[in-house]
């Protein structure tokens, strides 16, 4: 199990290299996904991510366990930040490894789909015009139906 929930920034390169170095022989495929703060409308001062301490870790561990049940995975990393961040800062990442690429790709997409709609994080955007909670996208809920 490798689930980390933290307010501090993380270094994608260092995480990806550490993940890759920890793989045993036979894992031929490594996939990473990284989510970055988008300044959609222009003028984003900050994004704040609220979460539900305790439940967050629990939900992410359950999502990881489901992925391990469904695919042949070597290792899984789920790292998600909370707190205040700026445009272009990295919010979160997942990494997966498997023998062949199909498992690592599908598991990473599954982790992201479930994390988006089932892990207790909420984004609030701060701009010069005020602050507002990001609305959930119907596509994100729909994405769960494919699994």
């Amino acid at each position: 199990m490798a689930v980390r929930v933290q307010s501090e920034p993380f270094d994608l390169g260092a995480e990806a290299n550490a993940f890759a170095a920890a793989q045993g022989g036979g894992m031929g495929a490594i996939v990473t996904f990284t989510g970055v703060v988008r300044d959609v409308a222009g003028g984003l001062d900050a994004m704040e991510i609220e979460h539900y301490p305790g439940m967050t870790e629990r939900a992410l561990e359950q999502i990881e366990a489901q992925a391990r049940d469904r695919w042949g995975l070597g290792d899984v990393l789920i790292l998600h930040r909370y707190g205040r961040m700026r445009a272009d800062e990295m919010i979160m990442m997942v990494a997966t490894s498997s023998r062949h690429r199909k498992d690592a790709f599908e598991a990473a997409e599954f982790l992201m789909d479930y994390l988006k709609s089932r892990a207790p994080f909420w984004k609030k955007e701060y701009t010069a015009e005020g602050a507002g909670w990001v609305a959930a996208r119907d596509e994100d809920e729909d994405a769960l139906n494919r699994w």
Partner: protein
Amino acid sequence: MIDVLYFAWVRERIGTPRETVETQAATVAELVDELRAREERYQAAFADLSALRVAVDQDLTDFDAPLSGAREVAFFPPMTGG
């Protein structure tokens, strides 16, 4: 006695992140009815249950879920992580 937690705009509408509630409610829906009867800010927060999600003891569930033995109930909008 049950801990009730609020997140995101639910927390903002109700004005507190957490409170302890004395209740005999058998289900989440009954607890919501009791809270709505308290004050207008609860009515505002719980106006549209389809816009809300609920977790009992840190597991996502629905508004029909029983509360017997539950220690913690949390209300929040749909999640937007990732």
